[in-house]
């Protein structure tokens, strides 16, 4: 059976419906029944937060407690897609959505994710593809929420497993045939966020050509605790640049414990592109990555 023929779960359908209409998805469907345990927010007594997979992006974006405790999660939810999508789309669906690659989305073109033998974008037009070439498929992972969850060390709970990290669920980019490593029939139930740190702040930024409503060329969710003029804690997670959301560990390392000043920020921004392997058409994403990192770091330092 080709991947397209396995049963696909449907939450709100904001990704799936388009693939059904175009004919990219033709296999059996199963609608998720929104039970109460997979909808809404559940705050733990220890300050942790569990968000049900069926919670809409709009609910997360509008929730004041989330904005206070996990501002990077709220800002990411506010920054993705459009209001009419955010009202429908769910957190689980956002994490498990399929690639936006224009070859993948064309029903007439074969690709690795549709049972094909190679990646047509790699040798073709990959203007909006990865700048960290980590595997056979060069489409960036589309989930903005996954990058934000990565920045927060969130874990994912499915109906069969729990405590899964974002890399546990989305992989390291080496598997080009799927957008995630969920097993057949495995469904995301929710996510768990650890208790936020004292005095931590966060910002989200995406680089796009227009003002709104565009898949990010590059996006970043950044958290930090800046105390006594220094980065006591820093976490940078980027999207739009790799087959999976990526921690920018070299840049984090360059800032950890260092003074929150312009020079250190500029140096760290340069480290953001460590390990990058751009494709012929995606070198610009490294410049943009440097730019968005500088942008959020300056805000964190301010």
């Amino acid at each position, binding site marked *: 059976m080709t991947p397209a023929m396995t049963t696909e779960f449907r939450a*709100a359908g904001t990704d799936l419906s*388009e693939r059904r209409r175009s004919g990219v998805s033709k296999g059996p469907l199963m609608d998720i029944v929104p039970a109460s345990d997979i909808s809404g927010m559940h705050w733990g007594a220890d300050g942790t937060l569990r968000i049900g997979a069926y919670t809409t992006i709009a609910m997360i974006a509008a929730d004041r407690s989330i904005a206070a405790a996990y501002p990077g999660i709220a800002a990411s939810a506010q920054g993705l*897609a*459009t209001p*009419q999508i955010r009202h429908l789309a769910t957190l689980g669906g956002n994490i498990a959505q399929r690639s936006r690659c224009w*070859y993948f989305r064309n029903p007439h073109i074969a690709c690795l994710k549709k049972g094909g033998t190679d990646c047509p974008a790699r040798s073709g037009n990959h203007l909006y593809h990865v700048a960290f070439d980590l595997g056979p498929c060069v489409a960036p992972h589309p989930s903005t929420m996954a990058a934000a969850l990565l920045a927060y060390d969130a874990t994912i709970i499915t109906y069969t497993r729990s405590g899964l990290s974002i890399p546990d669920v989305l992989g390291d980019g080496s598997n080009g045939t799927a957008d995630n490593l969920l097993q057949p029939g495995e469904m995301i139930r929710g996510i768990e966020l650890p208790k936020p740190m004292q005095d931590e702040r966060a910002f989200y930024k995406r680089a796009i050509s227009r003002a709104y*409503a565009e898949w990010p060329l590059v996006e970043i969710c950044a958290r930090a605790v800046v105390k006594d003029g220094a980065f006591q804690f820093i976490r940078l997670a980027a999207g739009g640049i790799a087959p999976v959301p990526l921690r920018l560990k070299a840049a984090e390392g360059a800032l950890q414990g260092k003074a929150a000043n312009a020079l250190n920020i500029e140096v760290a921004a340069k480290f953001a592109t460590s390990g990058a392997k751009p494709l012929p058409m995606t*070198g*610009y994403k490294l410049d943009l990555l440097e*730019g968005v990192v500088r942008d959020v770091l300056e805000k964190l330092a301010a």
Partner: protein
Amino acid sequence: MSTMTINGRVAPLPDDIDAMLIDVVRTDLDLTGTKLVCGAGVCGACTVLVDGAPVASCLMPARAAAGKTVTTVEGIGTEKLHPVQKAFMVHDALQCGFCTPGFIIEAAAFHDRWRATKGTATPSREEIGAVLSGHLCRCGAYDGIFSAVAAACSGQFDGGDIVSPRVEARDKVTGAAKYTVDINHEGQLEGVILRSEIAHGKIGELDFAPALALPGVGAAISLLAEDRIVRFVGQPIAAVAARDRKTALAAIAAIKVSSEKLPSVIGLDEARKPNAPVVFEKADRKKAGNVSEGAGAPAPWKANIRGPSAAFSLKPKQVRSWVESARQEKNPLLVEGVFRTGTQSHTCLEPHATVAHFEGDRLTVHASTQSVFHLMELIAKRYKLDHDKVRVIADHVGGGFGSKASLGAETTIAIDLARAANAPVRVAFDRHEELSVTGYRPASEVKLALLPSEQGGLKALSVTAYADTGAAINSTIATLARLIYPAEGKELADFDVISNLPPGAAFRGPGGPPMAFAVEQAIDEAALRMKVDPIELRKRWDTDPNRRRLYEWAQGLDVWRNRKSPAEQTGRYRRGVGVATGYWLYLWQPGSKVEVSVKGGRLIASTAIQDIGTGSRTVIANTVAREFGLEPHEVEVHIGDSKLPVGPGSGGSRTTASVVPPTLLAIQKLKAAIEKNAKQKPAPGSNAPWRELLAASPDLTASGVRPEDSRQMAPGIESPLKQVGILGWIFGKMMRWMSNMVIGAGVPSSVQVIEVEVDTWLGHVRVLNVHTGIAVGKIAAPALARSQAAGSVIQGIGYALYEAREIDGRTGDTLSGGLEDYRIPGIADTPVIDVHFDEAGFDHVLGGSVGIGEVATVPTSPAVANAIYNATGIRPMDLPIRPDRLISALKGRAAA
């Protein structure tokens, strides 16, 4: 069976797991105000309220609406109009109206939330931009939408009656306006097209048996020519009509096709290579499409390169030698460069669509067309039918921009299928078809050299343009550089580069924007090197009286006077101001006829014109109303039907100049007849004499035919073709004879001054302010002309910054086939737009008005580019000026 409550009524939901909410709304319930445009949740046209929240009904499974309350545009303001609807009407926040229901839903929901918490405070531009960020309007009505939403939220439309400057606005804000895609005859079938998946090949036998065997399939037909050759991905091979789209798609998939691939060539660079496979052999050249508004002149054609079309050159050999000497001498004033522009898709929100319906030997065609009358003629000719047996109807048209000007595949296929199936058939393209095979403004490579004289005049201009026309010909980019900035010599050469891509088509001022992008940046660069103010230099080099007045206006703008030089700016965000000029031809259509009648005391004006959002209905209503001292809404206007007196096509900005003069003539005659038949003269001193006369008048009719213009013109006003001498005269005659268009005297002109802000970290450009000065004579419908001017700027910003068709260079597949990958401007990308109309210059035209649609978009991309240069010192050579290109230029790297 589950149900939902929709607009206050309970409605059943289908069990089909793949049925979307929009299918139920539009098809099952016939609530056609909700529109399907992108099918991907990008454009917002399908927005409905579900339990009060605006959602994309094209992506929401129908079964998810079970137990919920749904409100469509038909459920907003049913008793009385919602304040947002009234505000949209008054502020002319719409043009073609196809996106309007979605905007109304979202804006009404926002308004109600806002009022509940903020009373009558006025929301900011930023707040409105964010809340409407999921809606796209291709006409660019955003300027009016900002004003409308702000005014409604601040309580200005809570009560009372309103009058809209656009006569059909009420139907558009309530969803009552019927477009071609909304037509649903009894027993109507849905037509779907099987398209080529290869860029060049020969198609073998088609086996329709498995398709015809499917229940619900009414017809399956071949669309191949005798040679069975396809020349681009997406070329029609066959078509099927079935009871619904799902069945038709299944039938298409069931057709067995075999094909033999032939060598293909994709795009400008490959097609110019010496051994490139040839797209059209000599015998097949008639099959090539046309990217211009008129018929083309003959030109040399070798392999895939057609050209040079160089008839408008002046002393080309001397130009070559002057430029060569200047190069040798390293003359610092010689400006040279290679500019590249992107492929721009029309992106009409209403797709190309036709419903064909035979009743006996009579054929009625509802079509989304820019020319109801001419389309009727073309159909009659092709199918060998008498004119009175064919009727083309288009009450409302959801955008055209040049792509719906002729007889398209959607129409012939709908007619062929209707005949074969013996049933009415609708063909409506999906978004991928719309963004791949309905035409586009070809990309181009423009090589330019500009040489000022020692005395500071313009000595020579050389422009050589290669246009990426796909399976089409007739690009006129360099040619247009002849009709502005007279020089001692001009070397102008246009080449069509033909490849296995879908054919380009005429698009709003064809050839104009790419010409201006190159020439206007070269002028800017020359001014800089000559140390002359760029507007001052244009005044020196440009002799046109209409534009000279606009230059005076532009020089007085504060934003121009206060601009800085690139060197003065540092830091992340930099601001710049740029200027550019544009022109278009003043065209009108001979034979255009308008009938004005009084019937039961009411005035009716009729002509077979169509309103594609540009406001032709209103132009006629205003003209009649003004002459009789009435209000425009008191005049009934009948258009959009080929049975009416012959009307002009909506192309070449010709409608206003074609219909206003005959309307005035008809009015003159009607007035005389009314006075003659009047039993009683109006009371002396009556302030509404015509109102009294009309009320008492018997039913009378008069008509007028478009007269020739007066030969009495203002000083300096003449046909732009005069500059080209005898060749210009021939060109003018050919336009009239072959394309039924007259190139009149006087040049519609536009000068734009644009301010941008560049984010040098993210390569992002924000257009802050646009001042657009326009000289198109007297303004026939001021609010609507303003909308056209602003919309032209917004489309020009799309061309400058965002829009580019992306293809696969190996296979010829269109990759940007959806609205998320083909990026048109959104409301938050809209600058503050100041429109200045200079109404002189066209007194020789009866009524004094000419068209605005094209000229107003020509200067936008170079003005943006010149502003970016002013901000950063970087000269943008490639359109669109996307972040990837700008950041690479800022970092001194080569872009991909």
